[in-house]
């Protein structure tokens, strides 16, 4: 059966170049980078080269990068690390209602330690109101954490502007750039952020490796205490193969991003236009322009998302509904609800997130199979009058 993967925001395939780059570290060069003997030297070199490559993508120095095991670890490290480091200065955090659970649940957990969080609204297009942000700031505000791009809708937030607001007031600024990495430019100097999270497995590298940028001079409490690794900022023997992989993935992203972004944008346009032409009663969620080039979030009125996904899966098409991370739960997407969608429309949403392996033929196949699926499911729906 055909297999078409439209779930690249959940995780990406591993790029064959990345696979090749990590192999030596699973075969001959399995040493511990801390060892001074032959077995450690190759590993140490891989760690430093991987660091350099990721630093190039982010435009930062090696001293400013901490390798972590996941985007979630990076988000936790950044948010808890700053909160505890600055707790004498204040206890107020500002974030948004549409963050990933790694951010939202970390902020919630900090409430038990006396931290208070303001969750900013988004409008119907998924955009923030920077005036609301400004007026949320209090003398006790120590941290703003706002994602660069939303995983469900692809909506991109104005990180540079938020950074300027934060800087003027001495507030530390973190951005979760897990979905932005590799899709839109990610220059920490230009963005003006203090901390930034990325994750390998959204970037054609494997799961289990990620990185956190921490601007020179920004102090934070470690999340994982231990040995001298990562300059005493993150204990644990380095995931050498993973670091080689994310380094390669970063280098590829640097090299190919412009080309890939154009490719993705054109496929996405084909998909959205095609669906709108073929399927009535749909809504494309998120601001039409201020979005990642690869993400299409579509609500199909009168039907429920999971049932669409199962139908798509039966035809070999992988997509998702809500974020993959919360697909184990039954709650409708908190992101779409925050954008003002009804429960029905939120439940009826499907996310198509494209990747660099996708082709125009993939889109055309989807456009062929989607209308009858939607029609069939609507025919079963008690909410759909048109079918009677």
């Amino acid at each position, binding site marked *: 059966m055909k297999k078409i993967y439209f779930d690249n925001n959940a995780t990406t395939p591993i790029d064959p170049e990345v696979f090749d780059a990590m192999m030596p570290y699973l075969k001959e060069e399995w040493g511990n980078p801390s060892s001074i003997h032959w077995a450690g030297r190759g590993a140490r070199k891989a760690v430093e080269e991987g660091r350099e490559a990721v630093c190039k993508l982010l435009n930062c120095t090696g001293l400013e990068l901490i390798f972590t095991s996941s985007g979630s670890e990076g988000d936790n490290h950044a948010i808890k690390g700053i909160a505890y480091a600055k707790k004498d200065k204040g206890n107020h955090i500002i974030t948004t209602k549409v963050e990933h659970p790694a951010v939202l649940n970390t902020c919630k957990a900090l409430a038990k330690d006396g931290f208070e969080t303001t969750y900013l609204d988004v409008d119907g297009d998924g955009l923030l109101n920077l005036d609301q942000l400004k007026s949320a700031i209090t003398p006790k505000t120590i941290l703003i954490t706002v994602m660069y791009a939303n995983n469900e809708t692809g909506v991109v937030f104005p990180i540079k502007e938020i950074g300027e607001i934060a800087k003027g007031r001495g507030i530390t600024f973190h951005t979760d750039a897990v979905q932005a990495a590799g899709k839109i430019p990610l220059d920490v100097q230009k963005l003006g952020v203090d901390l930034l999270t990325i994750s390998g497995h959204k970037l054609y590298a494997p799961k289990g490796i990620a990185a956190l940028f921490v601007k020179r001079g920004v102090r934070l409490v470690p999340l994982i205490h231990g040995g001298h690794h990562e300059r005493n900022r993150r204990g644990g023997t380095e995931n050498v193969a993973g670091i080689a992989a994310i380094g390669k993935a970063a280098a590829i992203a640097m090299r190919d991003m412009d080309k890939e972004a154009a490719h993705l944008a054109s496929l996405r346009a084909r998909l959205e236009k095609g669906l709108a032409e073929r399927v009535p009663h749909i809504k494309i969620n998120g601001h039409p322009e201020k979005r990642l080039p690869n993400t299409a979030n579509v609500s199909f009125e009168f039907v*429920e998302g999971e049932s669409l996904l199962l139908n798509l899966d*039966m035809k070999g098409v992988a997509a998702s509904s809500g974020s993959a991370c919360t697909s184990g739960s*039954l709650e409708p997407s908190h992101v779409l609800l925050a954008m003002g969608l009804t429960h029905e429309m939120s439940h009826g949403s499907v996310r198509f997130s494209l990747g660099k392996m996708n082709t125009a033929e993939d889109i055309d196949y989807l456009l062929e199979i989607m209308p009858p699926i939607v029609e069939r499911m609507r025919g079963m729906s008690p909410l759909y009058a048109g079918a009677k």
Partner: protein
Amino acid sequence: MYSEKVMDHFSNPRNVGEVDGPSGTGMVGNPACGDIMKLTIKVENDKITDVKFKTFGCGAAIATSSMVTELVKGKGLDEAEKISNNTVAEALDGLPPVKMHCSNLAADALHAAIEDYKKKNAAK
């Protein structure tokens, strides 16, 4: 995630639609949960002679709806009333734990339809 039986009922649902001139109608669930089921039954001589469903919901919701219609078709009302959500889930070889609460409403819809029939009948 789902058993083969669930997938069978999901992809080939039995008795979709609404019976003509239903003796009773049951509608349960709500949009917040993402599952709404509407069951219509035809009752003759205290027997369910026809039954159809319409469901807005996930795979489990559709499969349980389909299964419950198979279970009750031709059954007497007494027997039908004994069918629980668990009976339905078991008939489908089980459901993922996360789906047991929200999406397993088909028997509720059935009971609502029977109650509706009884109310209408009592009124006659």
